[in-house]
């Protein structure tokens, strides 16, 4: 599992208070008992973690953990994080 998937799962697990290993890419938000408020909260945490902004219209299409991971990957391709410069 790649880093994006790992971090998304960790965020969902922390938010819902469930074990990370109970979450897979195929897990649906419904099955994880993620309601609309949870989804907003998880999306915020994901945005913070990856320095991205999830468009409103995309949020509605996310039904599974895999959807979220793919969406994050696409947004990161469009807007890669700035390279860290060291002195």
């Amino acid at each position, binding site marked *: 599992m790649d880093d994006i998937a790992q971090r998304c799962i960790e965020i969902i697990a*922390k*938010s*819902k*208070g469930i074990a990370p290993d109970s979450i897979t890419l195929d897990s649906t938000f419904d099955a994880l008992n993620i309601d609309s*408020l*949870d989804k*907003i*909260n998880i*999306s*915020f945490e994901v*945005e913070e973690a990856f320095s991205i902004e999830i468009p409103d219209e995309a949020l509605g299409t996310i039904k599974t953990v895999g959807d979220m991971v793919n969406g994050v990957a696409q947004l990161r391709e469009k807007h890669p994080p700035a390279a860290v410069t060291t002195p």
Partner: protein
Amino acid sequence: MNRVVVTGLGCVTPIGSTVEDFRTALFSGATGIAPFPDFPEAPGETQGLRFTQSARVKDFDPRQHLESGIVVSTDRTTQFAIVAARQAAQQSNLLQHHASDNVAIIVGCACGGRQAEETETAKLYTRDARVHPLTVTRTMASAGASHISIDLGITGPVLNISTACSSGTHAIGLAFHMVRSGMVSAAITGGHEAPLTFGFLRAWDSMRVVSPTQCRPFSADRDGMTLGEGSAMLTLETLESAQARNAPIYAEIVGFGMSADAHHITQPAPEGAAAAMRKALKDANSSPDQVGYISAHGTGTQANDATEAAAIHQLFGPRAAQIPVSSTKALHGHSIGATGALEALATILALHHGQLPANAGVTEIDPTLNLDVILNAPREASPQLALSNSLAFGGLNAVLAIRPFANHG
């Protein structure tokens, strides 16, 4: 009209997060006031405050009590409220005996989710950051009332009362009237507050009413209040239902009085406080000579304590100097919207155990007040009637009249 008794108690306070711990500290005089820790919303920013102490709830980990989805969507004040309400409901076994739509939740909270509000606002003003999407649900003052309702499945009337430092007492008084009138058969009622944020303390600091040392009500050298936080909740129900199901009965609420000073936004007026006490006694069909204990608002400011003493003298006349009085704020601090509920809990425990709590912190009693302030140790006594006073900024006064439970006609 129904007689209304207290059948459940709950609390999360600076002197204990169980009623047993609260009671032990109350009667041993162990204070919860201590130097405050770092502020998460303003790390390292304690300079500039004239005071260094507050009464904070120690070692409260919401994850020990609440599922993570609730933790993330609530402020500390709501978390206190849920935990205290659960204790009160579970102790009284309330919901096994009352229909959920026949139970009210009436709680006091004046400040709302201060910590969430300040943390998010600090981010917004100091860097290019976004506000957390649950800030609205964390900060709304009625969140505590709503979450108690959701947590316990109570579908009757649910209200939050915001009347500054009288909020908790107003809430208990209104709940008492609702049960007495038969509008509901039971209520969860009390107050909750978690206002110990940097901005809130700075605001109080600017008013110069917070003690740079430590709160000591009725002391000649008193120099202000000490701010606190916490929650106390009571289960109220009709005597009939309590007896029918053999519920434990801790005390009987018999009267509630409210008044407004119509005077000044911060300066209290003795006439208003005296009127609220008089109305509470009238509501209780009782006379001033029956009062054997007053749990004072007693903030430790020069103005409050002198005004409250004057009000007691106005109402009780020559007997004023003989009525035992104490303020418990030197133990649990002044927790604004919650404090009246903490003091109602203290009064109920005092009546139930026949011990009136001492007024901690006094170095030398202020002789000009001419009150019988209970000093040094709790006083063994069994008063037939007690008053619990709350006198808020803005002149909003609320007083409860409470009796030890006795099964008289």
